[in-house]
């Protein structure tokens, strides 16, 4: 972990640790669900299951990025949170407009309603957290 300049607060302590915990929970939930779906019934809804897999991967990488803090970690987390936000909104809209596209539920279907809309809130909190812990330009 590289320390560059005085950070106001590292992304992996305080509220950040709570954020990481929730990201970890989602990483576990999404990974096991996607793994199971891809392993047992991939042909039923390949798009939905691949998407679940991608979402799972993003949750894992985001958790690692936040946990490692530092410069690279922050960039990785920023990218993940952005992709997540775009993903959950896009898939949310698509799953409402064209139900055939996602015949089976994914983490992001209907803006993550199956997971208490946490998938929608999580990237926003992540981006807010990254913003609030940003470093003053050296």
């Amino acid at each position: 972990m590289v320390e560059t300049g005085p950070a106001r607060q590292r992304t992996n302590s305080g509220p950040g640790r709570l954020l990481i915990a929730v990201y970890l929970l989602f990483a576990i939930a999404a990974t096991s669900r996607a793994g199971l779906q891809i392993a047992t019934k991939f042909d039923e809804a390949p798009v939905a299951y691949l998407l679940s897999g991608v979402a799972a991967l993003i949750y894992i990488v985001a958790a690692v990025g936040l946990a490692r803090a530092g410069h690279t970690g922050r960039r990785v987390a920023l990218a993940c949170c952005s992709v997540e936000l775009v993903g959950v909104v896009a898939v949310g809209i698509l799953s409402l407009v064209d139900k055939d596209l996602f015949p089976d539920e994914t983490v992001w279907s209907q803006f993550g309603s199956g997971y208490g809309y946490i998938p929608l809130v999580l990237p926003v909190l992540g981006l807010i957290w990254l913003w609030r812990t940003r470093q003053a330009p050296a």
Partner: protein
Amino acid sequence: MVPVTSVGADSPVDGIVATVPIVLSLLVAVWALVAAVRHRPPDRVQFVGLAVLEVALLVLSVLALVAVGGGDRPGEPGAFFGYLVTLVCLPPLAWVLARMEPTRWGSAIVCAVCLVAPVVVVRLQQTWEVLGG
């Protein structure tokens, strides 16, 4: 021992074995939430609560495994065991993270995990009871 499989398809993850961890988990969640709101780090009650919760979840798991050993089968075996493994890992996860974060946010972590655990218990019950499994 006569397994009751014909009538009502008795689920091993139903009734008191499931109710105890759910109630316990919610109690710890409320306690941890109060601590977080009061800017308190995770206290003894939270750690003891997590330990007792883990014991309750292990009892639940053992009963489920005994039922599986006795010939009963969950409706969705893959998902059922996935949830079961996840479930017993939750209190240790909360414990470790809460130890790393001795601030109000540690309490918030305990609260969050203890809100997730009951959901997983309910999902566990659903994956056992899928019809035609």
